[in-house]
């Protein structure tokens, strides 16, 4: 045993056995909470002991009681949505009851709101120089949201949730303060009740063209007490090697001492596709010599050849979606029941919810059951035990979509218009069936009904258990020890079945098949922390914390496939050919240690320093350990006696923080390895191998360092609250998945710690209680952020040679190049357009840059914009009329981003069914030039502005009078009507500027035949008993 360790252990023993203040005595804190203005009792107020997990919730009479509080001075905090959180010191005597009443004022300030730290303790916001954004369950109108992603969307400055499609079960791309990593995931870390949880955003082994489910949406918003967003490394340093992209920390609902309360709700709603789909067009005309031209497109009209179409005689049009009547109105049904209650000794919260959503496309539906049991037991006066168990069982049927000609929307957008009269059909028999095209209705696959593709049954069945066991031991008012163990175990079954003979596209489909991918994704967490508080003087306080955390993120998947399915079966047992099996495993383990020291002065100045050190199984063998230091300062200036008394300013806090956190390399990235394969040698299959990874023994984590600063300003008696933050974040040693020269004959890429990525920006939140009368109450929240992302440097390789820029995204339109945003669009664009002969047609008969081309292009590729918004702001007004009516809305603006309109490319440059080429006119010259250029392989004309403003949500809630509720034997009843995806304002020429066939991928962004978002209308009745 090394000397230092021996000394430390001795010290620990001394602390444990010799500290005289180790009193085991406890007391009780109780009190009454009222509305300061009306003096009415306030229920549902959280009252907690700061620095611990102890607390209670007031009942309807405003009373609360917290038993077994260690004797001594404690800080008590009370908070409720819509009121200014308060905190106050209380001295608890052994066996005594301390009284602490709160009179809470309507306000929007949050300085004393409680947040949970990385080590499991609680603290007030004023104590931390790096603010944590909190979404309180009470602020969410759940009738307006169908997923947890919806709950996160448009609510927190700096958090951008990109919903890529209108597909039920499809995930979203979540980014907090930009993108840090070039090659690794940019998804935030997800913590549920203190344990790490799976947040895989592309969680499926079955591709259907683009969209993929996200495990984030497994979580039921109804079960959540609050969501805390720890935005960047300055705040997330203690979360270590996983937190570089920020942390989403979810606390689920807990029971409260008092009368048992039952809550029930039922919701019903509709989904409609209100999008205005473009028509498929086909022009017919004739040549100068009178010859019939059955595809009189722009190119043909401007070729200048004898075969040119000189006159358009007619234009056939078709909307296959409408012609086939394949979409219908979807529906959504939810019902839930929960109960909560308990005593000082034990509390419980039990809930269950069942939901079913049927999309407008028949083969897109999801059923989900969420169950939760949260128990808390006060084992002794100083030790409590909390068990949280959440269970999800979902069955999602996924449609073919996006980059998939079998899809309902994609097949329609790529479909054809044709003259299918008898005369016309004879000209192009491939496009018309029996003269009328009654089978395919103009869909992409002639002769096949689009319904035929519904025979492909792609499903994902998930059974997920997220469970944690946490214990808090508070042997003295100055010491808190907590431990947490838990696991998130997700059994995921992706499968796809196609019966034989029902879909005759090719031999694969005619044979039928069954594919099954069963995966188990496990996240194990164990953590132990101890925190000691020492009051040097009544004003000076020291809080010391040490801890350790171990996580193990494991993945195992078994794949099986068989073809030539026996009709009537839908199991691998019914397959008879081309059997294939495979197995995939990964396992990444992290062991971290934490030390944290806080110094507080007069409850208004807080200085905190901390460090975490991690080892990780994915590091290269030559790299052992990483350190993540952090510092934070918070100063509540307005509490200082010298602060000038300005009537308008009710509170002011200045804050600053810096810190770092990281992200580990992927499993096996550091290893050199080969992959086993089967090879046929002289008619026999034998085991062999092929190149796997080249490895890198020096691989270390990416490390993101952040400095942030800002202020919290309360104005007009905290009726207006302004939070401003500026942050500056550098990701160093960024893992670059460097393309290797193909001539090496090795793996295609290799990870190197080379790059530096820079994110910086500003965040502003303004909350205002503009009108507060008994009859009318009007609140307004505006939050916004300005985000800039830049790849500073891709670095140099071992030979000091700079890593060259590389491309990605659809058609390699996106680039990773020094000085530009990650994944920015970089392509040759249309430079100028000149319809020289003023015929309303843009000609380019001999190719781009050649004679007769009526547009010019940039001589070289250049930056066209980033696919991520650089500016976003949300406006959320809330209007209450008396006690009975409340209306809310969310208006969301995102600007500065571009999108690659690949749908436009396919419609106008490949399939030639779009208006740019089939109905060219003086009004669409730019689109014509884009189409002509794209036909020659230059797609830059299809990088379009994707800025938009959306009316995301509108809700109207009626709190029904008690006499009405009583008819249902309920104590309260609320009826809510909500709408989502109500209106979009945008200059984008496609269906929806948010579409992305790249779905939740890191950077790939394009509108490529993606099904657009659908509109939701829902009605929900909630009863409380």
């Amino acid at each position, binding site marked *: 045993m090394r000397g230092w*360790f021996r000394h430390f*252990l001795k010290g*620990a023993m001394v602390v*444990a056995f010799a500290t005289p203040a*180790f009193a085991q005595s406890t007391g009780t804190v109780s009190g009454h909470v009222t509305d300061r203005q009306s003096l009415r009792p306030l229920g549902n107020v959280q009252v907690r002991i700061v620095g611990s997990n102890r607390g209670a919730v007031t009942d309807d009479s405003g009373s609360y009681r917290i038993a077994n509080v260690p004797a001594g001075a404690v800080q008590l905090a009370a908070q409720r949505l819509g009121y200014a959180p308060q905190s106050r010191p209380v001295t608890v005597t052994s066996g005594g009851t301390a009284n602490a009443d709160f009179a809470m004022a309507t306000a929007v300030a949050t300085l004393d709101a409680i947040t949970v730290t990385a080590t499991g303790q609680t603290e007030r916001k004023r104590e931390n120089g790096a603010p944590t954004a909190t979404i309180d369950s009470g602020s969410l109108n759940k009738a307006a949201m169908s997923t947890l992603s919806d709950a996160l969307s448009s609510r927190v400055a700096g958090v951008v949730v990109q919903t890529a499609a209108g597909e039920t079960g499809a995930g979203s791309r979540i980014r907090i303060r930009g993108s840090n990593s070039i090659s690794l995931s940019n998804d935030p870390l997800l913590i549920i009740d203190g344990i790490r949880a799976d947040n895989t955003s592309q969680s499926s082994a079955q591709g259907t063209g683009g969209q993929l489910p996200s495990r984030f949406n497994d979580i039921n918003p109804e079960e959540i007490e609050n969501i805390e967003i720890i935005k960047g490394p300055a705040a997330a340093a203690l979360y270590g090697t996983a937190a570089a992209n920020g942390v989403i920390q979810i606390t689920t609902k807990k029971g409260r001492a008092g009368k048992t309360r039952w809550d029930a709700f039922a919701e019903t709603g509709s989904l409609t596709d209100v999008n205005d789909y473009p028509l498929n067009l086909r022009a017919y005309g004739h040549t100068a010599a009178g010859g019939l*031209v059955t595809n009189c497109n*722009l*190119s*043909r009209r401007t070729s200048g050849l004898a*075969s040119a179409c000189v006159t358009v005689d007619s234009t056939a049009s078709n909307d296959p979606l409408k012609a086939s009547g394949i979409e219908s109105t979807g529906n959504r049904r939810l019902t839930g029941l929960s109960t909560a209650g308990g005593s000082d*000794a034990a509390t419980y919260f039990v809930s269950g919810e069942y939901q079913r959503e049927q999309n407008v496309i028949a083969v897109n539906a999801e059923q989900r059951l969420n169950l939760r049991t949260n128990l808390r037991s006060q084992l002794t006066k100083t030790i409590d035990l909390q068990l949280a168990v959440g269970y999800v069982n979902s069955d999602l049927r996924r449609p073919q979509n996006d980059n998939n000609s079998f899809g309902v929307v994609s097949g329609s957008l*790529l479909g054809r218009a044709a003259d299918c009269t008898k005369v016309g059909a004879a000209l192009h028999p*491939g496009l018309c069936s029996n003269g009328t095209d009654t089978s395919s209705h103009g869909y992409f*696959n002639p002769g096949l009904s689009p319904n035929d593709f519904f025979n492909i049954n792609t499903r994902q069945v998930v059974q997920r258990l997220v469970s944690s066991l946490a214990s808090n031991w508070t*042997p003295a008012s100055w010491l808190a*020890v907590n431990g947490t163990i838990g696991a998130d175990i997700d059994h995921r079954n992706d499968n796809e079945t196609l019966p034989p003979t029902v879909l005759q596209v*090719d031999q694969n489909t005619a044979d039928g098949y069954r594919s099954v991918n069963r995966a188990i994704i496990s996240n194990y967490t164990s953590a132990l922390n*101890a925190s000691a508080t020492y009051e040097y003087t009544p004003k000076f306080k020291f809080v010391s914390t*040490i801890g*350790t955390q*171990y996580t193990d993120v494991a993945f195992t998947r078994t794949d099986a496939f068989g073809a030539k399915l026996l009709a009537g079966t839908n199991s691998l047992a019914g397959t008879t*050919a*081309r059997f*294939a099996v495979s197995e995939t*495993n990964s396992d*990444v*383990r*992290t062991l971290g*240690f934490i030390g944290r020291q806080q110094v507080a002065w007069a409850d208004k100045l807080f200085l905190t320093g901390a460090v975490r050190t991690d*080892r990780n199984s*994915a590091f290269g063998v030559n790299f052992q350990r990483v350190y993540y230091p952090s510092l934070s300062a918070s100063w509540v200036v307005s509490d200082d006696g010298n602060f000038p008394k300005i009537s308008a300013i009710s509170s002011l806090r200045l804050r600053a923080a810096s810190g770092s956190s990281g992200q580990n390399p992927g499993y096996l990235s550091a*290893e*050199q390895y080969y*992959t086993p*394969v*089967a*090879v*046929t*040698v*002289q008619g026999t*299959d034998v*085991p*062999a*191998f*092929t*190149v796997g990874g080249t490895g890198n023994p020096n691989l270390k984590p990416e490390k993101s360092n952040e400095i942030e600063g800002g202020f919290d300003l309360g104005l007009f008696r905290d009726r207006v609250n302004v939070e401003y933050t500026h942050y500056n974040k550098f990701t160093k040693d960024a893992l670059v998945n460097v393309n*290797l*020269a193909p*001539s*090496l*004959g*090795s793996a295609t890429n290799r990870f190197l710690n080379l790059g530096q990525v820079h994110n910086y920006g500003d965040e502003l939140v303004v909350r205002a209680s503009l009108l507060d009368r008994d009859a009318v109450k009007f609140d307004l929240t505006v939050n916004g952020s300005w985000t800039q992302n830049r790849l500073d440097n891709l670095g140099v390789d*071992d030979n000091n040679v700079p890593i060259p820029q590389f*491309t990605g995204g659809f058609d*390699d339109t996106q680039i990773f190049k020094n000085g530009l945003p990650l994944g920015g669009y970089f392509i040759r664009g249309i430079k100028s357009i000149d319809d020289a002969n003023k015929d309303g047609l843009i000609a380019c008969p001999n190719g781009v840059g050649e004679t007769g081309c009526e547009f010019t292009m940039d001589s070289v590729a250049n930056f066209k914009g980033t696919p991520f918004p650089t500016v976003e702001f949300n406006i959320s007004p809330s209007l209450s009329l008396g006690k009975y009516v409340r209306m809310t809305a969310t208006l969301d603006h995102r600007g500065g981003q571009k999108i690659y309109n690949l749908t436009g490319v396919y419609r106008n440059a490949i*399939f*030639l*069914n779009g208006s740019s080429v089939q109905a060219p006119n003086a009004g669409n010259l730019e689109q014509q030039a884009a189409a002509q250029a794209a*036909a020659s*392989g230059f797609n830059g004309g299809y990088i379009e502005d994707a800025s938009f403003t959306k009316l995301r949500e509108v809700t109207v809630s009626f709190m029904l009078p008690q006499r009405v509720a009583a008819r249902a034997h309920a104590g309260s009843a609320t009826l809510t009507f909500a709408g989502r995806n109500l209106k979009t304002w945008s200059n984008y020429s496609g269906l929806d500027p948010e579409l992305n066939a790249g779905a939740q991928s890191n950077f790939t962004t394009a509108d490529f035949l993606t099904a657009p978002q659908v509109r939701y209308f829902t009605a929900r009745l909630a009863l409380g008993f």
Partner: protein
Amino acid sequence: MNTHMNNHMPHFKYAGRAVIAVALSGVVGLAACNQDKFLVAPTPDVVLPKDISGAAALPSAYAAAIGDFQVAYAGGYGTGLDNNEGLAQMSGLLADELVNAETFNTRIEVDRRATRVINATTLQTFQDMQRARATADLVASRFRQFDAKNPQGAEIQALAAYAYMLLAEDYCNGVPTSKVNDDGTFTFGEQQSGQQLLNAAVAKFDSAIAIASANGGGAALNLARVGKGRALLDLNKPAEAATAVAAVPSAFVYNIEHDENTGRQNNAIFSFNFVESRFSVGDREGTNGLPFVSLNDPRVPTIDAGPGFDGETELFLTTKYGDRKSPTPLAGGAEARLIQAEAAMRVSDLTTFRTMLNDSRANSTTYSADGGATSSPLPPPAAIAANAIPATAAAQQDLLFQERGLSLFLTSHRLGDMRRLVWQYGRSAESVFPKGPYEPDNTSKAGTNFGTDVNLPIPDQEKNNPQFLNGASACTNRSAAMT
């Protein structure tokens, strides 16, 4: 409850202190103990280098080289790098053997003779062939180290030589060949002309011939002989080429094998033709193309399957690759005879020219008309009558190259042949390669013309080779000549 707890206060008092000590000590103790055991993650799915070095690993290494070559040459239908067209398809697409019935730009631009250096499909094909080359080179060296007399070593050496030759035939001049060293470092190759690659191939063929002839490696020997003859033909040394292949039996065939077992082993030519309807057999593509369909030759039987994947292009399937396990010929006696026929033609020995052509016809593999598993192959094409041998040199060349096109259909010979017609026989590229409007009038994709490519470009990704930084093109030139 309170009473109960109070009764236990003394107990918890001491127990509590103990727990604190344990907790604090636990954190520190964990810091001090051997943490490695917490951080060892299993790697069950992969093979580590130590597991495949040494003589005992030669059988799996031999299979590895064959497997990588199969994927590079005839493609695979698996996942990732194993799901791609092989060079036999992509070169055939650029030539006149295949036409697209397709919607993917990356394939269409190859067919249209306008491939960009940024093209994901051709990148993968290039990566696959370079990997096949590197693996074959590595495995051949292992055989030399551990079992130098094993004919399997000669076979792998010949496959390495084929990789060099195919890179010369199908790509622009300038293809580098780099290497991952045993210690994991890289040695990057410089630009090489087609001639340099072909010379390297000939040297490797000679090495393979030497090993095989000394150790009874019949198949490897003839594989190397045919390969050497082909390389010499590319080097415009027809007489030496004829000598190299003279001893190859006419019935000899060396196939790259496929199987249904895994997607990687599937014949991708079949998959992309029959299964996915992406590529169709060409028929006078761009005016200049050979009429592979119209000739109704038993070496290239075709089936009209209606519209292809794009819904418009007529899809012709070739029964030469009628299922997932159809082998892809790499070399054979019929090709040896064609090499001899060309050498004879070059010296106007028309008797030998006809004899060799007919020997090739008689020994070419034929296929069934309908591709059925139990259907019999069509009889071989009839012998060419003496009076059917054209009188003019140009017509003789047309006949020879048509015979080669039919006999060696979709085996990655045709593009090299078309290049040779340009630079060895003095024809213009526009008289050999498809030209004019790319798609027929009145189709949806009509409106563009064929480009000017006569070979595939080296992918942009090669700029990660330090030799090609600062925007330098990896191709030294795009000419048809392999010089």
